[in-house]
């Protein structure tokens, strides 16, 4: 903890990332309570009004909906889904990777084959195809599919981390004590692999945000009228010349959030290297 603060003082960029991330979390939690507009409310008299006009801080889109309100509401879904996917894919990855690496042999071979097949398609293409065919994505289906697309990668990291610890004496000691496999995997080995696992979770968080924004952009993410940052960009792209703010501000929101999370995850990996 102390090293963390010391490192923070040396990394102003990491501080910036953490501050922006917390601002978005605050906006997602309390923002909607403070807003004068709802995300789907149409101000029919002021369509495509520019930022600052008629009490619309960031202007309105072609339907007269407040861009600022839509961005604030949109932060809820993207943060929720990204957080859940990074957790789920990490948990699933640890379970699969640990079981596979710990028992080895046939189980390992079978798991690795399955992972190879899933990893043969780029995650974005996989998620896009499955979500597109499922139709009408919800927060639930989005979370599950993106998690599945990311699980092979996390499983590989977890398997590698386990294999590097498996040969240690304390594992043998636990085995001789007669501990169960479950105990050895999760009580003995897991705490020793926590560094790479935490790095993986935070990195996954950044990837998930990118992926969810891209899926929304491709039109296979959350369905309207739920505001989704990626979707806002594509639905307003046709009016970019007349009302650039309708596209620019949602893009900025995505940019600020992903850059903040990347700076944060970069920092976490530095802390973990330092702790070693």
């Amino acid at each position, binding site marked *: 903890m102390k090293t963390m603060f010391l490192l923070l003082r040396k990394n102003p960029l990491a501080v910036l990332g953490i501050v922006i991330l917390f601002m978005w979390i605050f906006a997602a939690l309390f923002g909607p309570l403070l807003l004068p507009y709802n995300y789907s409310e149409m101000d029919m008299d002021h369509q495509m009004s520019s930022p600052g006009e008629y009490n619309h801080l960031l202007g309105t889109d072609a339907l007269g909906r407040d861009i600022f309100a839509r961005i604030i509401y949109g932060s809820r879904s993207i943060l929720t889904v990204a957080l859940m996917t990074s957790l789920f894919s990490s948990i699933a990855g640890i379970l699969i990777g640990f079981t596979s690496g710990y028992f080895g042999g046939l189980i390992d071979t079978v798991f690795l084959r399955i992972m190879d097949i899933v990893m043969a398609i780029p995650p974005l293409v996989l998620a896009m195809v499955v979500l597109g065919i499922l139709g009408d994505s919800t927060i639930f289906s989005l979370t599950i599919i993106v998690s599945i697309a990311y699980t092979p990668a996390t499983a590989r990291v977890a398997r590698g981390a386990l294999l590097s610890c498996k040969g240690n004496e304390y594992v043998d000691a636990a085995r001789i004590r007669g501990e169960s496999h479950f105990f050895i995997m999760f009580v003995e080995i897991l705490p020793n692999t926590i560094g790479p696992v935490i790095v993986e979770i935070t990195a996954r968080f950044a990837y998930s945000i990118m992926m969810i924004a891209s899926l929304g952009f*491709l039109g296979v993410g959350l369905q309207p009228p739920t505001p989704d940052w990626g979707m806002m960009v594509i639905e307003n792209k046709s009016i970019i010349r007349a009302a650039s703010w309708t596209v620019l501000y949602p893009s900025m929101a995505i940019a600020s959030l992903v850059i903040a999370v990347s*700076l944060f995850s970069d920092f976490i990996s530095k802390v973990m290297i330092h702790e070693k």
Partner: protein
Amino acid sequence: MIMTLAVMSFLIFLLVEIMPGDAAQTVLGQSATPESLAALRESMGLDDPMPIRYGRWAGAFIHGDLGESLYMRGVQINTVFWRKVGHSVILALTALVFYVPLSLFLGVLAGVRAGKLTDSIISFFGLATMALPEFVSGIILITIFAIKIPLLPITSIIPIGETLWGNLNILVLPALSITLVMFGYVSRMQRSSMITVMNSDYIRAAVLKGMPRGYVIFRHALKNALLPTITIIGMNMGWLFGGLIVVETLFGFPGLGSLTLSAIKTRDVPLLEASVLFITFIFVVSTFITDMMYAFLNPRIRFKGGDV
């Protein structure tokens, strides 16, 4: 690899099968009568059980026949598909021509000046652009180079009756959007491998021998420092095709990405199979070629059989 492709093609059939809606429904729309739906399904061959349809499709596929599109009635996929793939390949190559030299050069520069201001600027820029989804960097580029300074077109549509060759300027902004994203990965890799190599004994020896710094960097260090970067570029080839889907959607570019997306939305199974299998194929093959290249370029691996 064949195994992977076979499993994948079957899963796509299965997935479309168990989900509601099919191509006949998308062709006729929501208001279609049950009779017309049934008739169309029969003419599309959607009546047969799934395994039979899969067998029929796979049999033709092996012989290079991608089948007939379900949504665009009467259109042979072979005629549309390869033209679109060609467009995407040209776009991907343009992006490669942009980002490989740029990121290698800046990566080497950052690595040589590690810890100095040049390095900080390049590294932060790389981290920031790498984090952005392709469509966000695309929007930023559109705003700057198409709206503020009206140099390039906002959309990359090829006018009817014209070819891509007559409209090469539409490639620039999509390729630059990909460049921005890939730049971060490649320059970062190049920077860190450059730092490792510059700290090694043989570089120190070369410098102490009194060789000019530029000579040491380009003749001695770069050769070894390029290896990991080549791996990253190769590994990202398949990923590049994923990114292409996003970029093509943003610019309305008529390539593989937009084709795949429309195939999904119309439940056009043969077209979807062709697109996804092609992307997977590129992904797997590029990983394979990367491994080969790596061994070819690194004599230590070539002679010792991977024992490094």
